[in-house]
């Protein structure tokens, strides 16, 4: 299982210039649609917003992980954005977000391999070292190289 099956080049947004949470999410969802993971962007956006309403996905330490499970998702996918300007995300610790992973999960999750990678990345985000490496990536190659180190 390669990380690139989840995270296409189209969905790596470095830098991301949007300056508010909704535009960031729109752009990331759009990129997942461009990569073919998302087939119904509106349905997927709805799921994302519904999830945000139950509590911000800004988990603190400058990271957000907006995610949605929706019939609008064809295959599990991941998008990454490194924000040119930190964006307010209503985070748990109040800190603005510098990097965001967006996760798309299909309604009927086929096979656990994709999910396992996503879970492994989620777990990694708790690791301070991993996060500081993440904040340092300058382009898609560096990001993919970093994510290759994550064991699914």
């Amino acid at each position, binding site marked *: 299982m390669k990380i690139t099956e989840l995270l296409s080049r189209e969905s790596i947004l470095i830098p991301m210039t949007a300056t508010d949470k909704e535009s960031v999410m729109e752009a990331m969802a759009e990129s997942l649609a461009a990569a073919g993971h998302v087939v119904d962007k509106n349905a997927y956006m*709805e*799921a994302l917003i*519904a*999830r945000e309403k*139950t*509590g*911000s*996905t800004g*988990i*603190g330490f400058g990271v957000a*992980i907006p*995610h*949605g*499970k*929706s*019939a609008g998702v064809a295959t599990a996918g991941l998008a990454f954005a490194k924000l040119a300007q930190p964006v307010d995300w209503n985070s*748990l*610790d109040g800190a603005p977000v510098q990097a965001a992973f967006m*996760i798309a*999960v299909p*309604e009927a*999750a086929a096979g*656990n391999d994709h*999910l*396992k990678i*996503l*879970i492994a990345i*989620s*777990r*990694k*985000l*708790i*690791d301070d070292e991993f996060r500081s490496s993440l904040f340092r990536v300058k382009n898609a190659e560096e990001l993919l190289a970093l994510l290759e180190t994550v064991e699914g």
Partner: protein
Amino acid sequence: MTKLIAVTSCPTGVAHTYMAAESLQKAARSRGIELHVETRGAIGVENENTPDLIAAADAVIIAADTDVLEERFAGKPVVKVPVAQAIRDANGLLDQAVAAAKEQANRPNAAAAAPAKTQAAPAGRKGPYKHLMNGVSYMLPLVVAGGLLIAISFIWGIHAFEVKGSLPANLKMIGGAAFALMVPILSGFIAYSIAEKPGLAPGLVGGMLATQLSAGFLGGIISGFVAGYVVVALKKYIRMPRNLEGLKPILLLPLLGSLITGLLMIYVIGEPIQSLMSALTKWLESIGTTNSILLGLLLGGMMAFDMGGPVNKVAYTFGVGLLASNVTAPMAAVMAAGMTPPLGLWLSTLLTPGKFTREERDAGKSAAVLGLSFITEGAIPFAASDPLRVIPSLVVGSAITGALSMLFHVTVLAPHGGIFVAFIPNAVGHPLSYALAIAVGTVVTAVMVSLLKKPIEAKGENTK
């Protein structure tokens, strides 16, 4: 060293569940705390907290926005927070859990002071038994309150409650209300123990149907288990699109749970009970009063078999029915046999207190009063919590009492009242023999219960 366990869970099950788990584990590692984390996410339950792990844990952290089968942790100190808090403040959560564990450990006499509910349901017991005990412990206060109020209403004479609007009538009405709730609550909280909150409504409905279908407390036990497991199955197999997921707990589970439980109760339990009752009635009529000792034996055993259930009702109705034609000996047998179950259990709690929970020992005292007042329901909590050992003991004692009552030619003219009937001149024929018959059955029941019941396992379950 403090041993902690945790459960993390979130609705989507790909991100927060695992970040929370990671965050807790990281904090625990850095502080040298032993922590086992169960994750309930999109790929299912991983690192499940086994009964052994739960038993060994000093405290439980629940960081979840979904249902995590919390009742597994009954009796343990639990720190419960939304999943996000474990990500934001894992250290603070560990502090809270450690403090909760300490508090539990420092509580003087931890084992004895543990809440009665957890004591009544030690984790060492098997699943179904634990569910049963949960139902019984919620039902018990209703039996005590209802039974004693009805008994008090007899103080003004056993017919006093027939005067509408009088205090005795109102006491009887209050007691009756408590009794009407008894089986629904038993059933509801068995189901609650199995399926948590969504199980309660179907369980209550099933229990109410058990009452309406004359299925008694045994029917209520059945409806509780049916409702509980039906809801567990529904929770597991109904998959809703995510945006409709909210409908599941508020619409689908109560609706389908109550519907399925209700239909099963009516068609599978209710109809056979109706035919059982008419068959039993015919059978009793065929025996008639010719072989009076056999009749007494049967009536007695039937009274104790399900205490308010179909078998009991047939026997009672048979006895009361004969009063109209001035045949009064079977009524005496029926009443005596209805008095010995609570009396025998009371005596048994005195003979072998170690075989009863504290709750039951206390309930034994009121059972004595209920027994004397011919309120057989006083025995139900004991019978419901350990039916296979208690019911046979009650049946044997009551059967002997019923047979003796017939043998001594005792007669009773009133359909209720127990010892209060004795205050009415000439209502009881051969009162001393009657007392003897009741005493013998009481002793037989008490000895059998005391021999058959297993001692309560005084497992502290790591409360130290």
